[in-house]
Structure formats: C-alpha cells, structure tokens
C-alpha cells in the first residue's frame, strides 16, 4: 500500500522524465507560469528602453501596481469561490471619497464634519467593509447572481461618488488618510510595503489557513464543501467582506498617492484586476489560483504599461496592446494549466 501511495516503485528509466513532469506541474500549479515571461519582458525592456531598468523606475512600477494588486487580491477572494464582484471598482472610488468629504471643511467641498484625519481611515475601510457585507447579503440571503447585484452596485457607487462630492474632486484630504499612499519608509513607498505585507499574509491564508482551504473547496465543488461540514454561506459572505475591505484599502492608497480623492478614481480597474487574476492562473470558474500567480499577473500588467509608455508608444496603442497581451497571456496560462494537470478548467 505504502509503495502505491508514494509512487517510489516506478522503474528508474521513467524516473527522470516523471521528475521533470512533476516539476512542470508543480511549477504551473504553484503559479510560476508567468515568471519566465516576466523575466523576458524585463530583459527586453532593459535593452530597448534605457530608463527602464533603473531602481527608480522599478520602484515606480511597484508603486503603480500596488493599488491594482490589492484590488486583485480582493477580487481573488470571491473568484476562488466561483463568484465575482464588479463593485470593487466602485469601492475604490467611493470609500476614500466619502472619507475625504468627512474630513475637509465645507469650503473645500466637504460635509463640514471636519473629523480628525485618522477617522478618514475608519470611514473609508468601514464603508468598504459594509459594502462588502451588503454584497454578501445579496448573494447569500437574497440569492442574487453576483454579476448583476455587483454590477448594479458598481453603477450606484459611481453615482454616489458624484453625489457626496458634488461632482468635484477633494484635494489634500488629510495626512493620516494619505499617509499609506504617499509616505516612504526605508526608501520604499509605504504603499509597496502594504501591498507586499498583504500579499504575503493573505498568500499564507490561502495556502495554509482553514479559511483558505474552505475557499478552494467551495470553488471546486460547493455541495461537496457543504457535505464536508463547511459553513459555506458564512465563508461566501465573509469573502465578499474581505474583498470590499481590500478594495477600500486600494482606494485609500490611490487617494494618498494623488493627495486627492478624484471623482473618476478607480474607473476601469476591475477589468485590469480580472486580467491580472486570469493571467496569474486564477480560474474564473473557482477553486484554482495562487497568490504567487496573482502577483505575477499584477506585475506583468504593470511592466507592460510602463514599457509601452517608456517606449513612447502612442497612448491609443498602449491600451490596445495591453488588451492583446492579456488575451495571449490568458491563453498561455490556461493551456499550461490544462497540459500540466490534465484537468480541464474554465478560465
């Protein structure tokens, strides 16, 4: 029995090949598929654009992707359980805007509450969490399809941003609110450190925490997870809350970097987040995806955008080529994962 379990009884001739195959499938399932592509891009970038491989530019890329990165991690919570949340984009814009109007005086476009600046963080994250809770309620209790319920909320929040801000951006909302997105520690932007910390912490949760195991189980087969005694409804509900909180944090970073809450803040980010997740090997069907892969997807999008800009490609072409790259990368990840595991997945 034990030999059958470990597979050590295989003839030596096949061992080399199967070790390679095992390495290949571990490489893909671990989420490393895109790293060679990323390395290649960086190499090409260093050759074609002299400004690319400088420390300042690389840090700049990391700073730019930290907002997208946090949104993508949030999105991955709900995608792992086979759901989706379009309203994250709305949260990125709405949560920091609501915080900003609570902080600044009425003359600067605020409500006139003039709350202390640290309260801005509480308002932003609290709002984000509550919106996530509402999404969870709609999906778990009311039984709405998350596509339509979060789409509606996305549109609602876009309007909400304009309502609370009266259609005007809020400048310099307060030092505590903007600290995470603008300050530097040890020569690195705090936003990069926040992204790295969140990615590592949640990466560990996905892989080693019982909550992460429950996410994968529900995404793979919800009924089986239920039969195994997992409280499926509670996990789904909480995943929406975590997604909302992370989108709120992403919004705070963005507001900090710009030192203002802009009315168009976050628009279009949900598409990049989906692209980053899929490029990173997160299956939209649920149950599959790793933090390592997700981060590769986020970095890839950041590097491509940066490279195209540095190479002085006209901006119209930047957008179109990003789209093309997303499709190619998604094909690559899907094919790689199918070939390595032999299990068909819905991307």
């Amino acid at each position: 029995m034990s030999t059958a379990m470990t597979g050590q009884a295989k003839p030596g001739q096949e061992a080399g090949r199967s070790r390679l195959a095992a390495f290949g499938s571990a490489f893909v399932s671990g989420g490393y598929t895109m790293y060679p592509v990323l390395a290649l891009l960086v190499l090409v970038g260093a050759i074609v654009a002299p400004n690319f491989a400088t420390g300042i530019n690389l840090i700049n890329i990391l700073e730019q992707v930290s907002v997208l990165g946090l949104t993508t991690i949030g999105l991955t919570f709900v995608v792992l359980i086979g759901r989706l949340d379009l309203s994250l984009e709305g949260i990125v814009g709405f949560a920091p805007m609501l915080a900003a109007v609570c902080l600044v005086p009425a003359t600067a476009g605020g409500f006139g509450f003039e709350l202390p600046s640290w309260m801005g963080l509480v308002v932003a994250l609290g709002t984000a969490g509550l919106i996530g809770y509402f999404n969870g309620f709609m999906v778990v209790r009311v039984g709405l399809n998350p596509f339509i319920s979060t789409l509606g909320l996305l549109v609602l929040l876009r309007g909400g941003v304009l309502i609370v801000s009266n259609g005007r951006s809020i400048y310099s909302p307060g030092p505590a609110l903007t600290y995470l997105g603008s300050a530097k520690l040890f020569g690195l932007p705090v936003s990069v450190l926040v992204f790295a910390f969140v990615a590592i912490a949640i990466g560990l949760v996905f892989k080693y925490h019982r909550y992460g195991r429950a996410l994968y189980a529900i995404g793979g087969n919800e009924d089986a997870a239920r039969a195994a005694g997992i409280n499926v409804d509670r996990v789904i509900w909480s995943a929406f809350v975590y997604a909302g909180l992370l989108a709120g944090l992403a919004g705070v970073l963005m507001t900090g970097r710009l030192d203002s809450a802009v009315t168009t803040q976050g628009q279009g980010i949900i598409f990049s987040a989906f692209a980053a997740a899929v490029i990173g090997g997160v299956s939209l069907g649920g149950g599959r995806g790793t933090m390592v892969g997700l981060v590769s997807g986020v970095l890839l999008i950041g590097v491509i955008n940066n490279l195209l800009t540095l190479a002085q490609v006209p901006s119209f072409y930047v957008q179109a080529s990003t789209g093309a790259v997303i499709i190619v990368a998604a094909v690559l990840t899907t094919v790689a994962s199918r070939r390595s595991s032999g299990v068909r997945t819905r991307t």
Partner: protein
Amino acid sequence: MDITRPIVEMRNISKTFGSTKALKGVDFTVMHGEVHALLGRNGAGKSTLVSTMSGLVASDTGTIRIAKTEVTANGQPYAAKIRDDIAHVQQTPQLFNLLTVAENLFLENAVVQKKFGIVSHKRMLDKASALLQKWNINIRAEALAGELSAGTRQLLEIMKALCRGVPVIILDEPTAALSNAEKRMLFEQVKALKALGISFIYISHHLDEVFEVADTVTILRDGLVVKEREKVSNLTVELIADLMMGEKTARSVRVDHTQAEAPPLLRAKGVGLYPVTDAGVDFHIQPGEIVALAGPVGGGKEALAMMLAGQLTPYKGKISGSNETLPTIGLVPTDRHASGYVGILGVRENVAIGGLELLSGRFGFIKLDKEAAHVGGLARQTNVIASSLEQAVSQLSGGNQQKVVFARALCQNPQVIVALSPTRGVDVGAKEQLYALLRDLASRGLGVVVVSDEEDEIAQLANRVVTVFEGKITGELRGDYTMKDLILRMEGVA
C-alpha cells in the same frame, strides 16, 4: 399488419459499462396489445434493457426490431431511427420546468404544427386541455411544469408518451411518485390503450401492481433472462421472489457489534420528512450498530439521512444526541460527483476539508505535519490507491473517489457515519473493501446509517433495516432476517 407477429423483437442484446456487464445476450419479445412486466432486483439490467430498446443507451450487440423498423446494434446511437415507434417514460420525469404543461405535452409533436413548422398555440392549448380533462387532472394547460407536484409531473410524462401515437410504450417505475387515485387513473388508461392494440413494457418494484396490470412477465437476474414470457397467472409472489433472488444465497457476513444497553448516539423524535406532513418519524442509532434505511426513492429515506447528518433541518420534531450536544457526524453523500469530492483538488486537500477544525491550530492555520499524518492514515484505512496524495481526485477511478469521500467523512473522527448509496458505481473489489471498512467502524463503536437500494448491500451490512415510505417508517427488520424477508419488504409486498 400481422398482429400475431411480435411488435418488439430483441435478439442477443448485450451492454457493458466500464467493467460491468449489465446485459449478457438477452432476448426479449413483446406482442401486440400486451402489458409485459419486466422484473428483477436492482442492478439486474431492467432499466438498461428498456434503454437499449428505446435507444436511450445503444446496445453493443444484437438486433432490435420495433414494428417495421429494424436496427443492428454495434454500440452506435440508433434512437433517431426508432423514435416514431417507441416512447420511453423514465424513472424521473424529464420535463422542461420553464415550459407550460401544453408545451411539454406537444413538444416536437406534428399534430400542433402548421406550415413551415409553425406551432399553433390555440390547437396546442385545446388539445392539452382536452387531454387533461380526459385524465381528470385539474390543472390549467398554461401552468408551468415546474410548479406541479411530483405525481402530476409523472402523469404528464406518461401522457406525453401516450399522445405521441406510438405502438410501444415503456413505463419504467411509473408509479413511484403517484398517489393511489393517480395510480388507478394510470391503470385505467393503460387498459384502455391495450384494448386498442398498444403494447406496454412495465417495470415496477411493486409486485401487486404487476399482478393487477400485466399479462406477461419476464424476469432478469445479473444481466440474463431467468424466466421468459411467463403468463402472470402462472406465477406467485413466492415464485417471483425465488427467481429474482437466484440460487446463490448472499454470504451473510454481517456481524453484530450493537451495544444495545448504551445510550443511543443519535435520536430523532417526531421528525417530519416532508414540508407538509402530519407524520413524525422516531429513529435512534446505538453505538456499534449498522442500520439500513430502505424504501422507494423519494419515500423519505434520503431526507431522514440528511436530517440525521445535520444537512437538512427537520420540518418538525427534533434530532438530539445522547446528552445535550450532538455527536460528530461524517457524511458520505449520495452522488459523489455532484456533492462528494472536489475534482480539481488533490486527495490530501479533499480529505482535509472534512476535518479543518481538528487539523488547524491556533489562529486557524493548518498544522501541516498533523495533516500529512492524519490524511495519510485515513488514506491507508480506506485503501485509497493514488500516485500520490496530491493527485487530483477527478483522475482517480470511481472506487477510489468513493474511498476519498469516506476518508473525508472520517476526518473529524466522527461518532456516527451516515452513508447514502455508499457503493453506487463502484467495482466489486472496492465494494468489499468499503463493506469491510463500515463493519470495522461499527466494531469500534461508531454508529453507521446506510441508505441503500440494493438488497445485497443491506443484507451484508445491516443489523437493522428500517423501511421508510411516504414520510413514515413502515417496517423494521432486525437480527436474523433472511434475504427473502428483505426482498419482499423492499418490493412492497410484505
């Protein structure tokens, strides 16, 4: 047409599913205007035989002639060729829930079509209303099929088959969901159509129905015909049971570890199995006891098991443990593909999700060494064969998948295990291993509840058999019951 010639003639029909030979060269004939009952135990090949007749499942060998159409089977689909000669009413209604009653009844039926295949709604509704009236069913033709009760849906399925105007109709367990009044209605219609020369193939688990409605009986056992075209008047219940059971008396290897004096592990008091019911069910399970829940599909045995497992809230009544707290319960669900395993995850992860609380330490992080040891132990206990514990469960054989589901159910160290159809679609070797596992668990003092449709399985395992029918417990066998007791009980005669 020569009515002395059989309307259905099947010669040398065989069918293999994977490693199971469901039919081993069966001959079967049906005459004009005959109600021909097909009997046999679960797994004898009845449903497979009628499915090859209608083309739902393509036969591997032999010839099939229905009315004037003849096909030579070679495993390729032939349903389209015989579509106009035969109708097949399956065990579970195949209706479109979002279409109306009328649309369901006349789907793809030429009588309601005008030029260019345009469907006349008026004609369809008129015909449907007339049909409903003839059957004395009090529903509107515009009602959605999804809104109807199980019995009405079953009748609708039968009506749909009857109004296609085919000469041969297969009824596979048509009465499972019907009330007594609905049954009467069905039998009347069958008799009326029989007088018009229509032939029926009738499968039922209720021998009393067979004696009432059938003219001829054919009995299958293990994919072979053991009694061909016997007049129903020449048969008795006893004789039929003997023929169905066969010579081999199942080795009764069941052992009784029941700790009768100990307090019950789990107790159900006045539990309602249906949303609207007056009946309440009392049930208990002792340590070391293996109890089988038997009875017709939809009769409530699955509901009772899911309520015992804590997956379904009883509509009334209460489920309790020996003291205030409920025991830990492991569940093996009825359909492992739908709700048993997570195909894209490996063996380790699949087993571990059954016991995440047990395997995680402070802050909820999984203790990896404990996980490896515990899951490895369970995989050995359940004899899972995989290339490694990381292999995706969807790549395993059916038997090994089921063992993974058992390992998962055991992961939280349960005191009670509830297993629904524990060996469905599992090869013989794995079956024996799973039986041995369940007996072993009982010997260690676990309570085991098994829901099964297979007499063999129950006879090999259960110290007590509880039959559940129409939301009530209708009988109990305990201790030294015989195979015959069991079969008669499950065929609804005793």
